[in-house]
């Protein structure tokens, strides 16, 4: 009897792994990189962080020009002020992170085994606040959390994305993010993959479509003519809205899992925060 139960549960595990985990996260990442390399053999792996800019020398030159003196520099300075201002107990954000917060962002998101959920860098910043007696910021608030990350993430510029997926809980969260990426949504019926896997480097009316690997490395970004500040999850929300799907909550579990998957797929690529994007 005991033995039968054991065999049955093993079969259950097999069925689960065959269905959801036929490909490991690392295989998934490699396949996604190889697909881009095959279609665009001339684009260097490290240039995937430029996304759509990697397909147009002109657009990249304009970008480089702008980034020499970013017109949104004063916004990053506001973020620096938020980062450097001590909490009421006298402690700082820098005290919450190893190395004073330098070269840490590439380790996020990670799966927290005690909390049984994905922890993003934004959540870690909020944990730092609440631990020091301050109220948490809303992840969707660009004037607080957005600005804070516009500086805090620059402290990890150049660090290679280094997200880890180990253990069943982590795998399940990764799988949930993966499903989100490949699932059709909204009245227009697009998945993220419809464009960013199926039509990488092609032009949608006037804009090149960026590749999946590298997409998670350059946030937050200042976008468009008014340099509006977008965290990665605000971008998810805007994308969902464009395909006419009601967006998920910024900082909620769905987007956190998506960011986990998305960031893992950018592993090995250098971070660069607070850049310009169209």
């Amino acid at each position: 009897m005991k033995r039968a139960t054991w065999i049955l549960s093993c079969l259950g595990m097999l069925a689960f792994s065959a269905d959801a985990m036929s490909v490991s996260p690392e295989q998934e990442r490699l396949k996604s990189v190889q697909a881009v390399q095959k279609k665009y053999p001339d684009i260097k792996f490290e240039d995937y962080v430029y996304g759509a800019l990697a397909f147009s020398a002109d657009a990249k030159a304009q970008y480089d020009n702008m980034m020499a003196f970013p017109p949104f520099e004063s916004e990053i300075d506001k973020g620096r002020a938020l980062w450097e201002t001590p909490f009421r107990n006298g402690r700082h954000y820098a005290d919450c992170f190893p190395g004073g917060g330098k070269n840490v962002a590439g380790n996020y998101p990670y799966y927290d085994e005690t909390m049984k959920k994905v922890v993003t860098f934004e959540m870690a910043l909020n944990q730092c606040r609440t631990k020091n007696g301050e109220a948490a910021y809303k992840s969707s608030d660009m004037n607080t959390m957005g600005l804070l990350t516009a500086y805090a993430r620059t402290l990890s510029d150049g660090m290679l994305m280094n997200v880890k997926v180990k253990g069943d809980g982590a795998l399940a969260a990764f799988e949930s993010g993966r499903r989100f990426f490949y699932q059709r949504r909204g009245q227009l019926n697009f998945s993220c993959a419809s464009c960013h896997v199926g039509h990488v480097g092609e032009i949608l009316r006037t804009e090149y479509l960026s590749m999946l690997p590298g997409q998670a490395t350059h946030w937050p970004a200042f976008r468009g003519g008014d340099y509006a500040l977008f965290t990665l999850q605000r971008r998810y929300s805007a994308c969902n809205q464009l395909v006419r799907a009601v967006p998920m909550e910024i900082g909620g579990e769905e987007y956190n899992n998506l960011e986990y998957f998305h960031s893992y797929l950018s592993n090995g690529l250098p971070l660069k925060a607070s850049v310009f994007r169209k």
Partner: protein
Amino acid sequence: MEKPIAIVTAASLSLLLAATFMSAARAAAPGPEPSGQELAFDNRKGNCLACHAMPGDPKAVTSTNVAPPLVGMAARFPDRSKLYGQIWDATRSNPDTAMPPFGKNGILTDTEINKVVDYVYGL
């Protein structure tokens, strides 16, 4: 002589009042019906230009290369219902397609799809 005029005047006044009230109640009065070309260009409607070039129409400005250009459509789709079906739900012929199911998901009405088909057939 003057009596029928009074009737007509009163009746039309009533109608006018009624019409005013009706239009006030239905705030979003529909504008002129868009043409097939307008539907094809409008990014809130067909938005064909996002993915398809239309070299046959000089007004169709796009840099796209996502999907095949719309040229020689009458020759490519001798069966009009095939073209209609492709716009209605392209996932039936290709499960991975990025083309939205305009009819199935109610993005365009049947009338609108037919107008787009008419327009595209001329390309």
